[in-house]
């Protein structure tokens, strides 16, 4: 039988690549996906768990149920990639060879890099979101501070969305009048994208959410309950929610496949590793200066899959390349949302927040399991 196609990571990107390759060349390649947990987790739902609008169990399904029959799932942790001999070593000691390798290992959060940061809450893991929900349930009023402790981070709209959803949550519990929400932004505006910032900043002001710009969290003093920025400012909190620093997975760092933060250098169009043959990387895993989000992993997956299908068939690389497409939703509270769409050549556009975008996001969240992992949405 033909090529060994090996995919590391069973998140959105890795799962789509596996299924698209299986659909095209499942009869002439051995397709293996390695995932450390065996569960597929829908991370955009964490935000809703934190404010009690989603059940944790709804965000997790066995990866095996999302893969086509021709994809073999191995639940194990990749510990070392050896490009020279085209092998991957797993934690169990098992070694897998590959002809084509896709790195879809994503990112990890490292709150421990922030002095005192472990005292903060976050919604970047399911456990973290559940802990934050319990803390919010116990909250009886005071100052909630939302900050960012490292860039790049997953889902750039998330801190702003959380501020809006938190405002709704506190209003529903009749605590808003006894509470302050402070949003500390790493830039001199609410959001990375200027056009979207112009849209959301008036809404933040209208809801009484206080925005502080150029506040890149450097340290936390859990005793004094203060958070201090790289820029030298200090803010008091009663409850602190931080976006943790992110970096690439340990296997990438241990294998020397990435930069100093473990992000894999790839061509921004073909997603091929810039120096190593037969290796592609997608999603959060890469060093491409674009959003780390499920949307990017989703759009990149079809490009990597087409490249691998061509390699398996012995054909020339396809002309279809990743054009930098990003599409995501941004909740603005009160049952409304907007969207953000852009690519390498077209600047972001966001429509006026409306109920239909909130419902579109809710619909996407619910139908995700039956569409995206299978590669049914282009």
């Amino acid at each position: 039988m033909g090529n060994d196609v090996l995919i590391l990571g069973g998140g959105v990107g890795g799962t789509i690549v596996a299924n698209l390759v299986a659909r095209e060349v499942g009869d002439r390649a051995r397709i293996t996906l390695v995932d450390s947990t065996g569960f597929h987790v829908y991370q955009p739902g964490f935000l809703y768990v934190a404010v009690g609008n989603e059940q944790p169990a709804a965000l997790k399904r066995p990866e095996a149920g999302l893969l086509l029959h021709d994809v073999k799932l191995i639940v194990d942790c990749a510990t070392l990639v050896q490009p020279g001999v085209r092998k991957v070593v797993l934690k169990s000691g098992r070694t897998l060879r590959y002809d084509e390798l896709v790195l879809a290992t994503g990112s990890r959060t490292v709150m421990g890099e922030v002095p005192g940061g472990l005292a903060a809450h976050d919604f970047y893991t399911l456990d973290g979101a559940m802990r934050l929900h319990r803390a919010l349930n116990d909250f009886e009023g005071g100052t909630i501070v939302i900050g960012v402790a490292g860039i790049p981070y997953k889902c750039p709209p998330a801190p702003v969305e959380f501020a809006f959803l938190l405002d709704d949550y506190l209003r529903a519990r009749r605590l808003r009048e006894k509470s302050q929400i402070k949003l500390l932004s790493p830039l001199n505006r609410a959001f990375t994208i200027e056009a979207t910032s112009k849209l959301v900043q008036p809404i933040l002001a209208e809801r009484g959410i206080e925005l502080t710009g150029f506040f890149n969290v450097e340290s936390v003093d859990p005793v004094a309950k203060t958070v201090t920025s790289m820029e030298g400012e200090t803010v008091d909190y009663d409850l602190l929610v931080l976006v943790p620093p992110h970096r690439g997975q340990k296997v990438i760092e241990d294998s020397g496949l990435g930069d100093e933060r473990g992000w894999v250098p790839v061509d921004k169009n073909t997603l091929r590793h810039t120096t190593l043959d037969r290796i592609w990387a997608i999603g959060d895993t890469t060093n491409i200066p674009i959003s780390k989000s499920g949307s990017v992993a989703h759009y990149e997956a079809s490009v990597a899959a087409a490249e691998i299908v061509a390699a398996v068939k012995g054909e020339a690389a396809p002309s279809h390349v990743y054009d930098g497409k990003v599409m995501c939703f941004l909740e603005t509270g009160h049952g409304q949302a907007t969207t953000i769409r852009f690519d390498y050549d077209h600047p972001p556009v966001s429509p006026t927040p409306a109920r239909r975008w909130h419902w579109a996001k809710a619909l996407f969240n619910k139908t995700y399991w039956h569409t995206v992992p299978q590669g049914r949405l282009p």
Partner: protein
Amino acid sequence: MSTMQIDKTIDARGMACPGPLMNLIGAIRQGQVGQIFEVFSSDEGSKTDIPAWVAKAKHELVEVVQDDGYAHFIVRKAR
């Protein structure tokens, strides 16, 4: 342009705003006091964003040079 020992170069040409500034903030976060960082940016927004952040964070904007289609910023981590 003056010659000085550059500790880290960030070539952000082609990156959309605020990519160049975000990369600079990330590099300075990891760097040591006294180190020199250079950023190449073709994004117009960098011309205001980078000096504004450097001033707010009390680092030193050593030099800004406009070249053909991009700007070149040199920043010293001052604290």
